[in-house]
């Protein structure tokens, strides 16, 4: 999967915006949006929010979890826990990136938030890598990780699957070799 595909899926998440126009309900294939009343917040899909923002037709409203204290706590929780902790949104990374890219003036303390989210991301990726390492070294056949987000999985998917495939091949070759050597009688 391409990261842009993951972002595409993430854009279906709902975020709150404050439009500066008034419009009735819009009936789209994916669902209904609206009605829009100027100055009043309403939830819309992220893709629509970004589009409206680019056309200067709305203002973002920061999601509840996009707050310094909340993120600091989350980061602490993630650091303390051995396993993965549930994230405020299954697409937190994408939402943060898009909102902060287009709506820096709407989100208070954007820089700090960006840093905090990046820190959380780094923590989780590091955990993921180390857990893969442990898995491979232990030679187990199953592993289960909870609360991973799609974006994080996507970073390792390609490499991990290929690597595991190779390893499997090598294992089977070596085992064949040993059996062969066993069977060979000189």
């Amino acid at each position, binding site marked *: 999967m391409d990261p842009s595909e993951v972002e595409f899926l993430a854009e279906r998440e709902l975020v709150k915006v404050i439009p500066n126009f008034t419009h009735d309900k819009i009936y789209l294939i994916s669902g209904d949006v609206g009605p829009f009343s100027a*100055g*009043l917040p309403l939830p819309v899909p992220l893709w629509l929010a970004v589009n409206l923002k680019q056309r200067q037709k709305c203002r973002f409203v920061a999601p509840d979890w996009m707050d310094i204290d909340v993120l600091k706590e989350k980061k602490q929780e993630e650091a303390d826990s051995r396993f993965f902790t549930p994230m405020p949104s299954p697409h937190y990374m994408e939402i943060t990136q898009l909102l902060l890219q287009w709506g820096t003036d709407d989100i208070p303390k954007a820089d700090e938030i960006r840093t905090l989210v990046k820190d959380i991301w780094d923590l989780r990726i590091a955990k993921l890598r180390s857990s893969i390492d442990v898995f491979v070294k232990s030679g187990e056949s199953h592993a289960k990780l909870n609360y991973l987000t799609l974006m994080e999985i996507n970073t390792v998917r390609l490499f991990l699957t290929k690597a595991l495939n190779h390893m499997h091949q090598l294992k089977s070759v070596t085992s064949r070799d040993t059996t062969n050597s066993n069977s060979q009688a000189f």
Partner: protein
Amino acid sequence: MKSLKLAHNDGHTDVCYDSSGSFILTCGSDGKVCIWEGKDDTDTSSVNLGDKIFAIAFQGGRFFAATEENTIRIHTFPDGVSDGMVTRFTAPCRHFVVSDDGSMLVAGADDFKIKVISMEENECICLYSEHQAPILSVSIDPTKEFIASSSCDGTVKVWHVIDGTTEKTLNLLSKCSDPGQAKSLCRMCWSTDGEFLLIPVGNEIQVYLNSSWEIVKKLSHPNITDTINVMIMCPDGKHIAVGCSNGDIGIFELQSGKLIDKHSHPKHLPITSLAWNPNSWSELAFCDNVGQLGFLELVMADKKEQAPKVTNGTSIFDDADDDALMTASGHVAPRDDIDKYLEDDDNSIDIGSIKRSLNLDNEDENSVAASRDGDDNKIAPAPVFTLPPDLFKPTPPQPPFQPGSTPEHLSSRFMMWNNVGIIRQYVSEEENSIDIEFHDTTTHHALHIDNKSEYVLADLSTQAVLLASKEEDDTCSKLFCMHFGSWDTHKEWFYTMPMGEEIKAITATDTWVAVATELRNIRIFSIGGLQRQVFSIPGNVVALASHGNQLVVVYHKGMGLPGDQHLGVSVICVHGRSRKMLINGDSLPLSPKSKLSWIGFSEEGSVFYMDVDGVVRMLNRQFAYTWSPVANTKQHVKGKSDHYWLVGVSERLQQIRCVPCKGSRFPATLPRPALAVLPFQLPLCEPESEKSQYEESYQRSYLFAKSLSDYGMDSEDVNKQYRESLIKLFAFAAKASRDFRALEVCDMMEDQSLLHLAATYATRLKRIQLAERVSEIMQRRQEEEEENEDDGDERNIHFSQSLRSKGNTVNSDEENDNVNMTSEYDESTTPDVKRILNGPMLKTHTEKENHKVQEKTTPRYNPFKISRSDSSEKRSIKGTQVFDKIEKVTPKSSGIIAPLPVSIKKSTKKPSSGQAKLSMFNTKTEKLSSKTNEDRAVNAKSQHSNSQETSEGPVFKKKISAFSLWFEEVKPELQEEQPDLSLDDVSQLATERFRNLPKEEREVWVQKAKSSSECGNVKKRKLSENDTDPSQETKAPQHATAKLAKFAKCD
């Protein structure tokens, strides 16, 4: 001794009383000054000064603190706001005293210097630097002549205030280099007359005579074993309290030199400060060196009254044990309180103690006991000089304000936030500008204008921005309007108010603006700038709001009850065709002791307002124009000092739009406030109970449904909501066996379908009586409806009716009613109006040809009419009458059975008991004329056989039902079969046969009937349910027969 309170961190702690004796101030090494409200206070307020505080004193409403940063700072009491600095040294000041009258402050610091500062001039009038080591303590002579100072160089020096010349040096103490190492703080006291100087040396007090500086007495006691650290003179001048390094507090009587009382610190920590309550000489506060504050209740503090107590316990005067002392002294706590004395002495800057030490105690005493010397700095005696409690203080009237704005003194504020946009004002020394932003950018783009004319009031509508300035010294109040919605080139206009008439409040709509002025005038201008109207209001204006054609003015009606505002409100229709007053000067109801905080209109146009307590009320047009509370924003608030700042209300969405503010009543401009939406919640009792929730939901949705429909807006959702609530309420009541209540709920239902649902539900629950009663209500309603409908339908049905009515037997009652209705009926107005317009005059209108026909058929036959009197009689009759009628009627099978297309919607309510059903059914039938009865029965049958609508055949001409069609076809056969049967029996047989037909066949006939019948303008009374109650079937044949017969007869 009560348990000690931890006031500060470890270290030297100081305590003092305020002038009134009701507050205790302590300071410590944590840099805080804690203010205790009396000795029992647990919740102190504290002022953070930052650095360690070594000494504290109170004088004249302010307190002084000697801090680690080498200064003595002044702070106001009780706020603790910094009020300046007295002086500074090059080293921390360890001790200072303020003279009783507050004119002089003497401070000694670690840099060996002592400064005498005159408080009035704020100048150092004397600097004494004779000491060769850090100063331990200072003391002012009550006569203000001398100052005694002790220092680490082991000397106590007495010197003149004026010139700083040393009078006497006494080498009494041991030498040390640092106050922290000193064995004793050596706080000295002067006697109140200035005669004696008391110096604690070791574990005794040495009394020196003023002039000769010789020891005249030594006060000591075996119980006081350790070095006396601090000493304080009681305000009465007769006692002195000493605090020791081992935690002992002793009280000596000066005259006798005897130890009167002794207490010990529970932990035997050294006492670092003592303070005597200037108000009550039995209370002594002390502090130890770990930051704790304690209190001592002493026996002998009061002069005479205490004397007996003192003599009681002679042991007090003896060198008795502490316990003996305790018991004798009665309410002296069984702990060592003497230490408190000692503490109080030094570190507590109780004015009393200071005065004592300065020998001003006499004055203090006197002033406490009697009137003050008129010295402002003296402590006000608490009991004597308070205002009489019942002095009437008038409630200050609320100043005028713009709803939706933040206070004017802020440098960046909201001038207006409503549902059109936001106006902000930024004021600073250099600039004064206004920012206008619209919610909907299609209204207008954002504006930024310079505010040279210093406008402070603003309002915003979709067509214009209105600004107004206050009156300055020479400039008049100005009104400025930016009419951006104007289609010509001039987009603004302004007016200058006459001198002396300041603008107090403004409001703007799309077509007009209004301005309220100081002279109690309301000036109305058109949006284009024409002056339209000036009128006066009976009081000072508080706020204005407007919407559409309506203006609401809130003003002061008079002085309210103490704490309350007395506001009046007028709602006037100032624009449009009719100018009228909807509410004229009624008092605006507010919560007790509350003020108005917002008033305005909802988006749809109802008046809403909110008071300071957060209760939102609206003008309830449905209920006699009362002001009903619809929400309480305080319920949604998390913190106690959080408030909601209202910006708008929407009835359609049933929400209140506001901004949550933490810790204040209004939001700051930055960060951009987030809008929150609160739902309405009527304040019914027991809001958590299910029943109350239904009631609340019903009331609320009913209120808004009616309100919206008043405005002509679609209120489908809300309608649905209130109807649902009604049904739920009914179900709830019925399930709880509260049938009476359930019936009351039915009374509230306006809709027949709802009643029908209710009846069905009741029957399902086997509540027969309830079901019956509900059905009665239904019928009653139906009658009323029919009457109303008749009024409306008269004209419609007139033509064809006239034909029919010729041959119809009509009841006399009907006649009368018909006549009445005739008169009304020609009016081309709605039934409501018809009723209103009924009268003799109307009869003249009935001049059409129809009328002739009508007149012919004087009793115009109204098949839908339910003649009341008749029905009332008939209703009482139960089933038997039907049968009577059946006999009377001659059987006749009519060729054309044209049933009246009356859908017996109501009749489809099927009570489980046949009897009930019969009665209901009968009452139905009996209400109508015979013909209609028949038709209805026939209809009932046909309806019964299939869905409801099909019974609606043509009104007047041919009313064909499935049965009739089928009967026609079958009749000849039947007659052949049973030639000897009367027609009556034949029809009976036929009906039975018809019933026994398979449903599909019946359907076929029904369809035929439908297609062949002509539909006239028939009121369709929709059946809400399809009933196939077999009991109806059983009854139907008889009825059908009867009806057929009657029909035949009529025909």
